[in-house]
């Protein structure tokens, strides 16, 4: 496991560039975290941006089965990634696994898209964590590869641990979405899920679906504790206690 050292705090000018109107902040084991409207998580103390479950080339995996869904998911995801990097200006990007939809994604990757990925790896420090979908990453990608990484006191990994032990973790894999009902309407959106000892990231990819936070796979990770779902709206992020969710 690799350790990253704490870095000087963010300058105030960076705040003004944030796209959402009310920047949301939360803390996990004393580390300040800023969920971004794009689905990324910014960690200001470490100048690090986290994303999970990009699932690049998910579209082309369907094409191989005869379903020609639009081949633009990779570039949509990359554009979103470049946008949030431009606004947050991190020194480091960590992708929490399932960055590619399958082991053969690299063969299907368009040349332009690959070039964009390489450029990204040249501009900032990129770390790819291994996920269950991408045990093998495309060659010539750049960046570092790890199965787990520590960010200060936080353990970053793809699969959330069933037994946390003494860890405090940030994980992906589950693609959480949350729903809230009001006035006969139900709103569902991608969502960060945070308890006192772990946070689950929403999926970042353009074609990634979601699993409701009430599903046992997610809810059981928080045992008896009340967790908060940080729901991603079009303009801002809204936090709701799990008791209020649908």
């Amino acid at each position, binding site marked *: 496991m690799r350790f990253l050292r704490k870095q000087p705090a963010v300058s105030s000018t960076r705040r003004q560039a944030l796209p959402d109107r009310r920047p949301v902040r939360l803390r996990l084991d004393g580390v300040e975290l800023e969920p971004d409207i794009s689905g990324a998580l910014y960690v200001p103390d470490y100048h690090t941006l986290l994303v999970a479950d990009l699932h690049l080339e998910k579209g082309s995996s369907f094409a191989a089965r005869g379903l*020609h869904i*639009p*081949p633009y998911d990779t570039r*949509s995801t990359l554009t979103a990634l470049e946008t949030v990097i431009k606004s947050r200006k991190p020194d480091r990007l960590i992708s929490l696994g399932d960055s590619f939809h399958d082991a053969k994604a690299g063969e299907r990757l368009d040349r332009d898209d690959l070039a964009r990925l390489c450029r990204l790896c040249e501009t900032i420090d990129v770390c790819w964590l291994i996920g269950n979908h991408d045990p093998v990453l495309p060659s010539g990608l750049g960046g570092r590869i790890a199965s787990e990484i520590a960010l200060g006191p936080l353990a970053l990994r793809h699969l959330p641990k069933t037994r946390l032990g003494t860890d405090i973790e940030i994980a992906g894999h589950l693609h959480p979405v949350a729903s809230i*009902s009001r006035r*006969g309407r139900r709103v569902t959106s991608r969502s960060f899920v945070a308890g006192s000892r772990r946070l689950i990231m929403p999926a970042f990819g353009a*074609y990634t679906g979601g699993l409701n936070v009430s599903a046992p796979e997610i809810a059981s990770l928080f045992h008896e504790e009340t967790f908060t779902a940080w729901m991603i709206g079009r*303009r801002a992020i*809204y936090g709701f206690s799990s008791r*209020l969710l649908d």
Partner: protein
Amino acid sequence: MSQSHSSLPQSFARWFKERGWRPREHQLAVFSSVGTGQSVLLVAPTGGGKTLAGFLPSLVELSTSAKGQGLHTLYVSPLKALAVDIARNLEKPVAEMGLGIAIETRTGDTPPHKRRRQRSNPPDILISTPEQLALMIADPHAHVLFRHLRVVVLDELHALVASKRGALLSLGLARLARLAPHARRIGLSATVARPDMLQAWLVPQHPGHTLAHAQLVTGPAGLVPEITILKSVERVPWSGHSARYSIGEIYDAIGKSRLALIFVNTRSQAEVIFQELWRVNDQTLPIALHHGSLDVAQRRKVEAAMAAGRLKAVVATSTLDLGVDWGDVDLVINIGAPKGSSRLIQRIGRSNHRLDEPSRAMLVPSNRFEVLECEVARMAVNEGAQDSERMTVKKLDVLAQHILGMAVHSPFKPDALYDEIRSSFAYRELTREEFDRTVEFVATGGYTLKTYERYAKLKPTADGRLRLAHPRLAQAYRLNVGTIVEDEMLKVRLVKSPRAGKPLVSYGGRLLGEVEEWFINSMSIGDTFIFAGEVVKLEAVEELTALVSRTRSTEPAVPSYYGGKFPLSTYLARRVREMLADPDKQRQLPAQVREWLGLQRYASVLPAADEMLVETFPRGNRHYLVCYPFEGRLAHQTLGMLLTRRLERWGAQPMGFVASEYALGIWTVRDLNLLISSGRLSLARLFDQDMLGDDLDAWLAESMLMKRTFRTCAIVAGLIERRSTAKEKTSRQMTVSSDLIYDVLRSHEPNHILLRAAWDDAAEGLIDARRLAELLARIRGKILHRALDRISPLSVPVMLEIGREPVYGEANDALLEETARSLINEAAGSA
């Protein structure tokens, strides 16, 4: 026309005579035209011996010569249930005359081994559906199957041509014309406003030439039905759709008839009416419920009881849901607005199978505007006036499906296929560019980014044809065939409500039926709603099943009316406007409705038929704009969306809107009367046609309605798979939601043909932009504005809808924010 063609063979004449019947004139006319090799459209009301007319030419031909040589006659009907029934009805005369003709059905329910046998050893007459025709012509041996085909009979043609299934059928006929060029076509249709269009639809066209037409045979007009409108002693409500006020009177009418059929517009309305009837059912009359969401076994039970005469009344949603044998219905009660005169005529026409007795019908308006609509519908039916419905043409998603099917049959030459397709009425105006792009779409998705070449479904052969790249694509085609895309459904299962602290027992429990997934999604666990005739509580949703329990509550918490599927027809809308403008025509109306209109004339104005009234007035601390286009809820909803965007931009600070079938109300923070009188807001500019440009485009980018339409197109075109119930819903890695595909496609390739197809559908369907465009053109320079100091009588119904309507999926952030804010207020209050 020679005598030999118009006279029936001995055996047939004898058969008619033995039963004391005589062949009807229109039956003979169809027979003789077909005998001379012509195609015919027969227009006649239900019960006019239409089916026999359609089969008579085939039966005669088969009785004399061609029997057992292969498929002679193909009959296509939109209804699967009808197929079995038709076969049964046909077998009787065939047996009685000893003709020995083989008649079989082929529907989605026909097992594969029987289909295979039908292919190798076809019956003389095959009774089928448009989807089955598509499958049959895609078969590699289609040319063998159809080589002896002599007659194609198309039933319920008026209904088919207005749907995507009609587009699919039209393409199938174009192929049949090549496989069996001498087959004649017989179209059977209810009375329609424009028979000439159906005559053209029926026969091959030659692009660039004038339209070719089939011959027209008109059956005897049915008796004019006796239609009454319930003139209730109760007060007719201002708004709403429950018709609860009239339950006592409906119950009385049921008591006085042999068997009453009660039609409502939606499933939830059926549930409400059924419940209310049983609440007043002191004599415990056998009253049943029937709608498409109920479990099939339960539906069959109701149908059997109905045919056996054991029922007194059935509450039903649609004629199509019902089986065919309706028993002895002598009264049709139509609750709510009829929406179109043709629809009403067909509903009523189903009631009485005796031609010498007029059908009886009672219309029950559920609110005051519906009184007007019922009245004009009654007048229209009496005059025999029909709505002119639009034909479904040039659907590119259906075309994509057909092109793949043609490749499944055999490799094709694009030039030849293009010519063939343009001979179908529905695609006669297809451009070569549209055709080529659709072929491209089928092959590789048709994207500018050419990354799917290696996964192409169609590959060129050395001789310039396109062939299927892999046999498994044929299998995928067969699974996807058809144009009906159901809403995703959840099963509804009854379970016991868990006692406190005990877990829910989710297995076992009676299956109540199926319900749309979006309906359940709009609810929270613990909410109550009406289903299958009882108030139930949602306990849990497990994968594809909603678990519900019985509850003692009588008032369901979830409002269950989401508006009918069908907007008010343009024809009836015009007549409603004419009635409002003309006091003479209002004499028929009940006193309470006349009073209401009188008040409106006094307090504001009743507009002329070609004008649109706009009223603005303050109320509470808001300001309202109410307009009355009468173009149906969907078009009004779109108009509301667009007007609020504009008002926002022009600083009127709109806060919301509500759309009904007849009117649209918008409320704002700023004083509209002042804005208009000071010239800062121009109504002519507000309602300018240019809103259909950028404003519409911007709204559609995010519209849920557009996404729903896109999903249908994507499934029909084969871009995504139908969700089969066997598939696990949680296997989210294996599917991509059509909403996400829509977002990605729209941002990268806004001119993709599938987006174009979806836009076409939405314009005619969920957003009804076509009708909105017609409205905006119609009211140019004809806006009649009244600045009032208070609410007007005419606006009361739509004002009452405020707060009752669910807002459609455009205001997600607003809802999240509102939830967050109310929590903050709550917290502040309790601190």
